[in-house]
């Protein structure tokens, strides 16, 4: 018998480290590997096919179905010599960074006030603060047009008061300000969760050594949440590059273009669809956003490392604001809520019930239901509403089912296929909805046996599933990971196959989480507007995309009515999500 005694501490350290790096492996057979590979393979096709088609199209000289199409760099040559392209690229960069400069400090401040102080009405604020995130940005942008646009309700009111309108939202600064304010929730979400996870003993340790609570906030809290702030900034730059609704509504009238609206305008610029040029710009956009997504992933891992340091100890001390402090804090949040929620939504709510609006029009004389009556007479609009509801409610449920299947394929999967899954999920995040919609439009044109499905809701549904993939899968994976491994292992040792284990143990346990995920996916699908721009056709209209096309015609009354319906539906979805206990803070 050997009697050598290695230092036990060193041994357990290395063993723990090894277990972290190389998690335990189940036997290869009986572990649903075939299922995992098939599901992940199908998903890979669903994600890679459209991206591949975009790249393919970008190297053609004409639309891919045209007999004149040849391989060549003509499209790249055209785009890279187009002044408008570089202007759009520059504007997009300024827009994104400007948005971050507004959203990150404000989001950080809101997160600090709501999680770290004894501010009043905390529970209500926690929900209200997230509202702008759930409303589609085209609705928000339109809301700003009718309230603070050149002839908006508020603008005219101010002009009556002081003689001029001291702002112009149809400008780059205006766009940046509005986009910045409406992206505050995205920052708030990550920073507040980092602040919540911060163990109070770290701060208490600093306080006992003599630091005041303000010094602690600056010297301990801020550095600890810095990774979350950086992550939120990276996320917002990405969202800035992908944004479509705000530049379309606010920038387009004055010819201010970003990359997404540049793609959109290429269609109308030439009269005929110039697919190859659109594809080139989409490729450029992906080349910019993909590194951002990758960077974000690294940052998130880093941020988790920080958060993992803390236990879940209940926060003992919050910063006491005092009477004047409460007043200032509530005023800040109230003003922000007024600007980013009340102004646009209020504007829409009023505009939807007004037939005509402009200078010298008395609001009270104009109140009417005519907008809705007229809307209900137009079949495409009615279909749009019905389709939107169908896609959100049933499509959302089906999408959750699909995400669940994918989530299970990745659940406790340590094989090669899981790495593949990880990277596939990243890709849709780098694609703006507009580009995904365009790509799927092409896929449904390109693949013969899919062509009959293009004029049906199926085409929209598939695109929506890909658009919502990373968010939906994160929701589901977050739920699945909460099932303790022993609960599954005990089913296995009792005699259940892995499929039986999923059916009898995993899915029943995560069922409440599934309901919440459904409600959240429903909201995502409700507010989606960019994906349908190219995909929708007669019979498959959806509210958001209808608004995009109506913007070209300037049918304000109809847009206002549709916006209000969209807001009401989103509100209903949000109420349902809260009712079902969805974790809107994830």
């Amino acid at each position, binding site marked *: 018998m050997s009697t050598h005694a290695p230092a036990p501490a060193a041994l357990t350290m290395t063993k723990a480290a090894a277990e972290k790096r190389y998690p335990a492996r189940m*036997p290869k*057979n009986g572990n649903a590997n075939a299922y995992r590979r098939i599901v992940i393979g199908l998903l890979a096709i669903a994600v890679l096919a459209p991206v591949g088609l975009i790249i393919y199209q970008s190297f053609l000289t004409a639309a891919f179905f045209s007999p004149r199409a040849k391989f060549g760099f003509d499209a790249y040559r055209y785009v890279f010599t187009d002044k408008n392209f570089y202007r759009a690229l520059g504007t997009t960069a300024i827009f994104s960074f400007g948005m971050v400069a507004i959203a990150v400090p404000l989001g950080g401040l809101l997160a600090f006030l709501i999680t770290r102080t004894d501010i009043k009405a905390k529970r209500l604020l926690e929900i209200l603060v997230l509202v702008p995130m759930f409303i589609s940005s085209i609705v928000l942008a339109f809301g700003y047009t009718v309230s603070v646009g050149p002839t908006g309700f508020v603008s005219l009111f101010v002009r009556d008061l002081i003689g001029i309108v001291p702002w112009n939202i149809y400008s780059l600064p205006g766009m940046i300000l509005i986009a910045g304010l409406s992206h505050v929730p995205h920052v708030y979400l990550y920073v507040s969760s980092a602040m919540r996870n911060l163990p109070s003993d770290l701060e208490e340790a600093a306080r006992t050594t003599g630091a005041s609570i303000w010094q602690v906030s600056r010297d301990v809290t801020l550095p600890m949440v810095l990774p979350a702030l950086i992550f939120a900034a990276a996320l917002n730059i990405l969202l800035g590059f992908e944004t479509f609704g705000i530049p379309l509504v606010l920038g387009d009238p004055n010819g201010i273009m970003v990359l997404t609206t540049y793609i959109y305008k290429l269609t109308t610029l030439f009269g005929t669809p110039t697919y190859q040029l659109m594809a080139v710009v989409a490729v450029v956009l992906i080349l910019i956003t993909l590194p951002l997504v990758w960077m974000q992933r690294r940052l998130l891992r880093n941020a988790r490392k920080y958060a993992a340091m803390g236990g879940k100890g209940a926060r003992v001390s919050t910063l006491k604001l005092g009477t004047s402090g409460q007043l200032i804090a509530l005023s800040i949040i109230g003003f922000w809520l007024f600007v980013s929620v009340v102004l646009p939504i209020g504007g829409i709510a009023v505009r939807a019930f007004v037939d005509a609006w402009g200078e010298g029009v008395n609001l009270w004389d104009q109140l009417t239901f005519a907008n809705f009556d007229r809307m209900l007479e137009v079949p495409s609009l009615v279909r749009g509403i019905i389709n939107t509801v169908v896609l959100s409610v049933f499509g959302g449920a089906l999408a959750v089912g699909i995400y669940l299947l994918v989530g299970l394929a990745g659940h406790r999967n340590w094989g090669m296929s899981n790495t593949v899954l990880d990277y596939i999920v990243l890709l849709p995040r780098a694609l703006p909805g507009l580009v995904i919609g365009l790509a799927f439009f092409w896929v449904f044109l390109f693949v013969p046996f899919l062509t009959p499905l293009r004029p049906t809701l199926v085409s929209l549904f598939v695109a929506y599933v890909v658009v919502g993939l990373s968010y939906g899968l994160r929701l589901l994976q977050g739920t699945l990971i909460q099932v303790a491994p022993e609960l599954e292992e005990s089913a296995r040792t009792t005699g259940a196959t892995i499929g039986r284990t999923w059916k009898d143990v995993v899915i029943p346990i995560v069922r409440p989480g599934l309901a919440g995920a459904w409600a959240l996916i429903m909201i995502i699908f409700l507010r989606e507007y960019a994906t349908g721009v190219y995909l929708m056709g007669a019979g498959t209209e959806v509210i958001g995309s209808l608004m995009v096309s109506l913007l070209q015609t300037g049918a304000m009354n109809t847009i206002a009515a549709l916006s209000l319906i969209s807001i009401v539906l989103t509100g209903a979805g949000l109420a349902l999500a809260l009712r079902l206990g969805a974790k809107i803070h994830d």
Partner: protein
Amino acid sequence: MTELVVSNVQKWLGGLQILKGASFTAERGSIVALLGASGSGKTTLLRCVAGLEQPEIGQIVIGGKTVLDGEKKLALPPEQRNIGLVFQSYALWPHRTVKENVGYGLKLRNVAQADIEKRVQGILDRMGLGHLADRFPSQLSGGQQQRVAICRALVYEPRVLLLDEPLSNLDAKLREEARYWIRKLILDLEICAILVTHDQSEALAAADNILLLQDGRIVQQGGPQEIYSNPNSFYSADFLGANNIVRAKIKTVDGRTAVIGGDNWSLNGTIRETVGLNASQDARAVIRVEQISVTDSPAADGLEMNLDDSIYLGDRWEYRLRRGDFVAKAHGAKQLASGKVWARIPPESVWVFSAGAQ
């Protein structure tokens, strides 16, 4: 009847080998304890038997069926091994009632519903849980949950019952009761059981056969008395019992007996190092605390020592003894005055090993 054969199981995690060739067998109607410190690989070994982890090398046969063969690349998943596993955390399914938890294994084996009802009720009654059949696990106490977990693993009569630290989540009093009735149950039902534990008293009280693991290897195996009173290595000697560890120099060696000593003291001892020891080598001696008896009256066969303090432990007193660089603990029934005392230490209880790596 041999129900479980484990031979030469080796497992790596990345570059680190955590099981270095474990082999043992287990019989029906007996309990084998896998005992070891954390990181010794005992739980990994159990999980390899259960099929929850896959060793790279080795062979495992359960009830005559080969479930793992490294050479033939055969590894059956857990559900095909016909085992029952009781988890440390019990792992009861929170969405199923006690009855449904226990009956699940029978349902998977396509037993008729009426039969399931009967057998589940039967085993629940036997464990004194009959009245809790329709409760959910969250409505049960820790001890009740543990018994449900055992029922769940037993009801379908697996060939081998695996218990992963089943008692560690119970409070101390409950634990002593539990290890008694678990042993009784397993002997009554004539099952083959493997018990993983880091608690030596649990292993000594419950097992028929103890495998002591160190660093991925089985360093000693035997019955509880054998392993307690006849350790073959310093690790075995030190791991079990409450011990005094004495660092000393070997003065003389005579066969298996030796005299060790240090600064102003010497003791007769027994060499237990397998490779043997020579005079003037550094050595470590292990003396079980209960083997030292202390008196305050001079004893010719006792070592004169200084009593630093007597510490009251409730049921006994602990003495802190010192002579030069020899420091020891001993127990006794009464308080002794600090100062000169005599300690009787039988030579066969002074186990001498080499000084080890340091």
